């Protein structure tokens, strides 16, 4: 099943590479990717699909939440504890 992630990433060196690498390394295919400049950074829409049923999109979301310079728009998701100030 494909899920679409809605994200914002900053312009720092490696940000996009860091995000894509994490998603693939954690066992997800990237089936679609769009990127647009919003002035403050880049908006990303990414369609992802687990390589097997054991891959949990919620866990992937929490792993993305740990990246610095990346914001995930997921209204139901609690912020990662490391990112709460």
């Amino acid at each position, binding site marked *: 099943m494909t899920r679409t992630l809605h994200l914002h990433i900053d312009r*720092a*060196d*490696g940000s996009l*590479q*860091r995000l894509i*690498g*994490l998603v693939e*390394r954690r066992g997800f295919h990237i089936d679609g990717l769009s990127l647009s400049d919003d002035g403050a950074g880049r908006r990303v829409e990414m369609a992802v699909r687990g390589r097997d049923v054991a891959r*949990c999109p*919620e*866990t992937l979301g*929490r*792993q993305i*939440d*740990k990246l*610095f310079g990346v914001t995930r728009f997921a209204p139901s998701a*609690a912020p*990662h*504890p*490391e*990112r*709460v*100030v």
Partner: protein
Amino acid sequence: MTASAVRMPEPAAVPKSGARLLVSTLERLGVEVVFGYPGGAIMPVYDALTGSSLRHILVRHEQAAAFAADAYARRSGKVGVCLATSGPGATNLITGIANAMMDSVPIVCITGNVAQAVMGTDAFQEIDILGVTLPIVKHSILVRDPADVPAAVEEAFHIAASGRPGPVLIDLPKDVQVGQTSEDIGFRYPNAVVPVDHDAIARAADAIRQAERPLIYVGGGVKIGRAVDPLRAFAEATGIPSVSTLNALGTIATDAPGALGMLGMHGTRGANEAVQEADLLIVFGARFDDRATGKLAEFAPHARVVHFDIDASEIGKLRQTQVAVAGELPAGISALTAHLAPTPLRIDPWMMRCATRAERTGFRYDAPGEGVYAPALLKAISEAAGDDFVAACDVGQHQMWAAQHCRFAKPEAHITSGGLGAMGFGLPAGIGAKLADPDATVVVIAGDGGFMMNVQELATLRRYDVAVKILLLDNSSLGLVRQWQELFFNQNYSEVDLSDNPDFVRVAEAFGVEAFRISRREEVTAGIARLLAADGPCLAHVIIDPRENVWPLVPPGKNNAEMMEGA
């Protein structure tokens, strides 16, 4: 820079180079020791080091710089720092960076790079180290302007040490190092405070009260999260038995009541069988590593799970959790203890069952023969060294024997490459630990395979007279691989023979390090005494039986109750 950073005005500064700003920022952050190796693209930083308050330890290979910084951080509780040049200098750091990532150790790795004008042109010693290391860092920063150096360094330190710690890379192109700026802006990062989820704590307490066979599963996160005292108080107040991961050994003293030892592949029978029988696992700062769980689908088959962790992404990653408590461990554990305090748990039969089994299945040290029995030797040296004992372990059979048989009174006493399992870690780790805590009795526990991977660091020991004691257990083979070939590959011994090892006593002496040999069991007591009494660095070369195996062992693909025992 994270949004929470507060810009701190600094007095107007005279122009400084990026390299000098790096050094002055490290000084301002309280860094005392950096481990490194110079080269072309980091020369401005080495120029700026001259006259600074930083003590630079010149290792003989960059991998050792990263390992030493890692162990320095583990032992000191500070951020470890290492330096390397571009290209091969930077790539030589990689195993050390990965090690710190896997074990959640706060280090900052600073690499030089070629000037920005030639980045991307395959210039001499150019490597995209930021790209290469992306999967193995908590974060990384390519600094493109000298004025950004202080903020980048402070951000790197903050990220490395906060939350779940980890390695941060700072890549400094050469033009940034030599470029001049009058900016010297510092930032202060407030510590993030995660409020305790009292509802979740209450649910955890309810689950514990309902359990008949609760078990504490301690991970390395307890030590990292500075929650050792709250955890010990929780264990003592409730009487719940505990098992430990490799990286958590000593979090609850290994000889404390209810401490059943390490779980997993080479865990104790008392620990593994308790896990398989438990009806509730109370997990603190652990990640259900496969070496701990064995066959995951059959791990703790009767247990519900309460999981405390600073890293929410670890909760539910591999094992379904009934109660999740994401956040700071000290506050969470203390709140849990307070919840349970009014009513003692009724788990006496379970406590008795665990204690009786641990007693009945405990290790024995009466192996026949006259050769040195490594488990007994390791137990003896840890007891002889006392509470100041710190083991800096390499990777292999000796590492597992140390985990099984050494006495660890505190978690900082056991420094090991747990997640990555990096051979060659022991000697540079010993150097880092001893420099972090000169009063500790630091014993490097190494095998002949791993020791040869960073043997050049004997020169570092001698140069700085670092009084590390090296216990080199020599079975003339890659013992753990040989053991698996014996047990699981029909005794087809492929490329594990190291019987052409050099004479390690003469090697050490050639580096100017005192050394002697222990060949027979009757020499062990005197040998330990000599090693521990040596004024400076000293190596004991211990000959052990190449056929000796690590027992017990959970075979691959089996659950933790299916342990093999040796003859």
